[in-house]
């Protein structure tokens, strides 16, 4: 975690004083010297001071323009300090109880000493864990909580048994309370580890979530020693899932072993089902699932990290070589998938119905797109709602070929191309289903256009990629005698151009997509039946 000297300094004083507090109590216990208990209480003021000091410095470190990560880092310092303060307060509580005990015999037990040792060890690890770049030590701190809990439970069980004899009940109860306090200190230690892990991962991780990751990892058949574990945050998806890469700290950052994704249970269940459906229908295209864990309405999924690049990244290479190879490998893969998965039943994509459903959310982001019909002299232009209504009628009459298994969210960043092995993989498979192949193609074309890369060379590569996908589809349509490809493609493109504006905040770019979508529909509804047969999508639509 990032070292912020003023905060770190205050934190180190805090740790030092708590260590002294704890050590004096341990000594008092071992030597049966109650004066040491009083001495331990003298640390309280120092601890209080150090904590307040850290909070004040944290307040001063925050500034209006600190970025999210900086702020998180400061918050983690505060979290650690507050947890340590809680630990110290428990120690204080425990000291008062010890002072009241007539005999310390019940407390002078091996498990109790062990628990204290664990606490001590935890405290001594904190500085090193903060300074370390890997998570190993922070995980160790978290692990100590489990150990402390276990030893406390052991001893508590013994007390319980003794209580049944009915002798020295009062002392036994007092001792039980003390053990409870020790166990709660273990919890505080866990929060300290949580703070360090959160700062390193770049997002606040609650420890129950962390345990989910750990459980997943232990299922992963890989000899990961805990010290080597490294997790780095890779961002968030539109559906609100967080994604992290899990890899080894010892090697370079490329050595990500797995992707850890967590979020709403429903989403991740869908994703898992999607991946599994692909394993069945077309093995080798979807990542391997290592583990799936659920808890309440949250779930986490640990799956294979696929090497290669997504198409939005391939576009950024100056050279067309990989892009071209990647696209054509994608096309061949699609041909294979379509041939393998075709069922004997057509399923219309219902592009206009999809569009109709999303009109509201388009206008939410771009209220200026919600226009009434227009009239200049004799020329009339209907509203978008009217256009969609008209186009829906056309779509109903179209011939749809037999359905194939489609990706369902076929965006540039959901397709990975590995240039080394010349292989394509799919990710984000929660919407896969049987449908018209044009659904995936049209979504992919627009997902290229939608990218907010604006330098002219990249724009050119985008246009050419779009054209290539369209050409590929056209070629395939000829092969399977799909006579309504052009019109369905136009409707699919219109749908995606119009609905994708929701994700595009650049006004000019969004407007240009909106215009293209409208244009295609306006063009289509003006065609008579024979014109429709010969309709070709104007290639200008792929250019800016």
């Amino acid at each position: 975690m990032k070292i912020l000297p003023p905060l770190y300094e205050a934190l180190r004083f805090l740790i030092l004083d708590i260590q002294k507090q704890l050590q004096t109590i341990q000594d008092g216990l071992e030597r049966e010297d109650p004066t040491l208990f009083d001495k331990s209480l003298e640390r309280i003021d120092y601890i209080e001071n150090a904590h307040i000091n850290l909070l004040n410095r944290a307040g001063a470190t925050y500034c209006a323009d600190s970025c999210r990560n900086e702020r998180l880092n400061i918050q983690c310092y505060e979290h650690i300090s507050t947890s340590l303060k809680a630990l110290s307060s428990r120690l204080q509580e425990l000291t008062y109880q010890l002072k009241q005990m007539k005999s310390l015999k019940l407390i002078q037990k091996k498990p109790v000493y062990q628990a204290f040792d664990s606490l001590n060890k935890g405290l001594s690890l904190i500085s090193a864990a903060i300074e370390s770049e890997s998570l190993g030590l922070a995980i160790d701190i978290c692990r100590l909580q489990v150990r402390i809990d276990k030893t406390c439970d052991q001893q508590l069980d013994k007390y319980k048994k003794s209580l049944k004899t009915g002798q020295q009940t009062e002392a036994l109860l007092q001792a039980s309370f003390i053990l409870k306090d020790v166990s709660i200190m273990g919890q505080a230690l866990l929060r300290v580890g949580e703070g360090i892990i959160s700062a390193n991962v770049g997002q606040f991780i609650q420890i129950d979530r962390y345990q989910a990751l750990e459980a997943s990892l232990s299922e992963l058949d890989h000899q990961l020693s805990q010290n080597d574990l490294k997790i780095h945050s890779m961002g968030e998806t539109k559906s609100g899932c967080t994604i992290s890469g899990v890899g080894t700290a010892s090697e370079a950052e490329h050595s990500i072993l797995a992707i850890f994704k967590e979020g709403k249970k429903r989403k991740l269940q869908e994703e898992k089902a999607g991946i599994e459906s692909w394993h069945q229908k077309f093995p080798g295209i979807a990542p391997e699932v290592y583990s799936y864990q659920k808890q309440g309405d949250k779930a986490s999924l640990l799956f294979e990290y696929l090497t290669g690049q997504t198409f939005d990244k391939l576009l950024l290479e100056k050279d067309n070589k990989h892009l071209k190879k990647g696209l054509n490998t994608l096309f061949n893969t699609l041909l294979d998938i379509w041939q393998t998965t075709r069922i004997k039943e057509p399923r219309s994509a219902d592009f206009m119905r999809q569009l109709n459903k999303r009109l509201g959310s388009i206008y939410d982001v771009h209220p200026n797109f919600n226009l009434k019909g227009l009239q200049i002299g004799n020329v009339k232009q209907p509203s978008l709602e009217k256009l969609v209504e008209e186009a829906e009628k056309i779509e109903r009459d179209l011939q749809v070929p037999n359905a194939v298994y489609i990706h369902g969210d076929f965006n540039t960043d959901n397709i990975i191309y590995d240039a080394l092995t010349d292989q394509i993989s799919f990710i984000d498979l929660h919407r896969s289903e049987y449908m018209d192949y044009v659904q995936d193609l049209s979504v992919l074309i627009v997902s290229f256009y939608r990218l907010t890369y604006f330098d002219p060379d990249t724009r050119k590569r985008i246009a050419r990629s779009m054209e290539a996908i369209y050409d590929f589809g056209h070629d395939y349509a000829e092969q399977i005698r799909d006579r309504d490809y052009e019109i369905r493609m136009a409707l699919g493109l219109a749908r995606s151009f119009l609905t994708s504006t929701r994700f595009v905040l650049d006004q000019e770019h969004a407007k240009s997509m909106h215009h293209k979508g409208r244009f295609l529909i306006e063009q289509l509804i003006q065609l008579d039946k024979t014109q429709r047969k010969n309709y070709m999508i104007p290639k200008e639509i792929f250019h800016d």
Partner: protein
Amino acid sequence: MAKNNQYFEHESLQDKDAIISYLKALTEGIEKGEILLSDEEETLLLKPGKISLLRIKATNSKKNSELRLRLSWSNYEADSDKNAPLFIKAKKASKSK
């Protein structure tokens, strides 16, 4: 690559008939795909594409009224030398078992 940006501008007072003939000339140019604009020094040949962005702006006030017509399109075909298609047509033989 396009050389430097070319520029043409014109402003004059015209009667109704003349304005109609200007607009007609533009319409015919759009139809042909070529609009020639020239004064004594500069000649500018515009090639409107099949698809252009049309913008109409009108304002009306007590003092005056205004109607603006704007057509814009991109000349992407200008450097067609680099425009070899990215899609390689598969040979018919690629039919698998």
